[in-house]
């Protein structure tokens, strides 16, 4: 009964809608990102996104219109860094994300102080979502789903083998950019709910978990999307029932799923 009662609160319904949409997008994009060793880009972007949001709040600007372009530009920048210098890429991303976070914190403490707004960007909150966020999430996730579907084979090809794709005349740069931009959008949307510190887990966990269980790329993509939604719903419900922060409960649920998948994968591997 208490579970049904949950849906009488409009903010919970909004959290479910936005969360499910963001989970699906993050999981889909996560598979190529993880396989291309770009997981850290997701993490870097969430910190940049936090920095942008704090500055926007401090200046009294609307948060999303400011942070979306900033994060998209950073996504392109991080992508270039990763492509240019294979060796220093993870260090470069770490530097960018720590700096963005630091700037966000300094701007915040100089102006408003640590308000609930800023706190909710850091650790996520189901109260942070407005009706406009729901509309934006629906728009962005529709775009992610359609583009992912349209370019599924191309994304597979550039993920599996960039040099071959380049040699056969595919515009690899265009698809990498598409991947980075869609990731940026997904992260900005999901960050309000999950928090800057935890949003990258939404990108990484489902792909990792699905990879333990499935042997085909298609299987991994489908399972990652399903797992992501299930983990989000379980996590959100747990957060409602136990009064826990959403982001953290979703991550812990995902971790449990990952550990279970690892054990199942090991057992299967032995037989």
């Amino acid at each position: 009964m208490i579970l049904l009662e949950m849906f009488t609160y409009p903010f919970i319904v909004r959290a479910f809608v936005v969360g499910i949409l963001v989970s699906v997008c993050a999981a889909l994009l996560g598979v190529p990102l993880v396989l291309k060793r770009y997981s850290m880009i997701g993490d870097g972007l969430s910190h940049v996104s936090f920095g942008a949001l704090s500055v926007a709040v401090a200046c009294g600007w609307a948060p999303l219109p400011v942070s979306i372009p900033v994060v998209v530009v950073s996504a392109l920048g991080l992508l270039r860094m990763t492509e240019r210098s294979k060796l220093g890429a993870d260090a470069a991303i770490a530097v960018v994300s720590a700096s963005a976070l630091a700037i966000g914190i300094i701007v915040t403490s100089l102006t408003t102080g640590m308000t609930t707004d800023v706190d909710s960007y850091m650790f996520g909150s189901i109260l942070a979502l407005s009706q406009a966020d729901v509309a934006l999430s629906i728009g962005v996730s529709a775009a992610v789903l359609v583009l992912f579907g349209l370019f599924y084979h191309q994304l597979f090809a550039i993920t599996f083998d960039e040099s071959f794709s380049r040699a056969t005349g595919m515009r690899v740069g265009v698809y990498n950019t598409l991947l980075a931009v869609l990731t940026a959008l997904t992260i900005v949307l999901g960050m309000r709910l999950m928090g800057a510190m935890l949003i990258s887990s939404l990108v990484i966990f489902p792909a990792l978990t699905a990879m333990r269980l499935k042997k085909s790329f298609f299987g991994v993509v489908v399972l990652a999307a399903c797992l992501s939604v299930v983990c989000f719903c379980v996590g959100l419900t747990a957060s409602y029932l136990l009064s826990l922060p959403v982001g953290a409960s979703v991550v812990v649920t995902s971790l449990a799923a990952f550990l279970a998948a690892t054990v199942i994968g090991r057992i299967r591997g032995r037989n």
Partner: protein
Amino acid sequence: MDKEILLACRDADLGYEGKAIWEHLDFQVRRGDYICIVGENGSGKSTLLKSLLGLLRPLSGRIDRAESLRGGAIGYLPQQTRAQKDFPATVTEVVRSGFLSAGGHRLLYTPAQKAQALVNMGKLGILELKDRCYRELSGGQQQRVLLARALCAARELLILDEPVTGLDPAAAQDLYRTLAYLNKTEGIAIVMVTHDMENALRYADFILHAGQGKHFFGTVRDYLASPMGRRFGGESA
């Protein structure tokens, strides 16, 4: 009788940012040729490959391609990356991805492409592996999968970048026999960068040797008679 020319370098200077690594390179790949590119590390073999694949423009001169090779229709076997070793994908998924060249975006593979993918897997003896996961295959089997993918991209020319690196000797011999079969029976031209001089001399029709500032292109016999060939091919021939 002249065989049809697939790819021709005509007085081409190749290199990066105005700095030519290859100067006045003249050579051609004709239908059914088997050419090995040899030379020390850093002598510009990968620059040449990139240029042949059309990823790098010649600084001067020309690289002409036959009509049938335009639009990315070159079968390429790159060096394997570490990321691929544990990639979750079935053999079928990998092989079919060879059809995604520049021309035309389709949402699904056509029935003809799916059939052709099966034919190519058959040619390489990996049909029974078609639902297996790529990461569970041996190095030699993985190379066959990538060759089948390359055949989906192109039927006339295969360009291979050190294909036997990392294979055990038996798998390497296996790969050479497969390539010889594709070359002789299917008439596919092969251009291979390799360090394996012994097998290069055994299987190739022509050798392109990259050296500091100078190069050699000619038949294996001419190569062995040349100063470069005596120095490099001597011990194994």
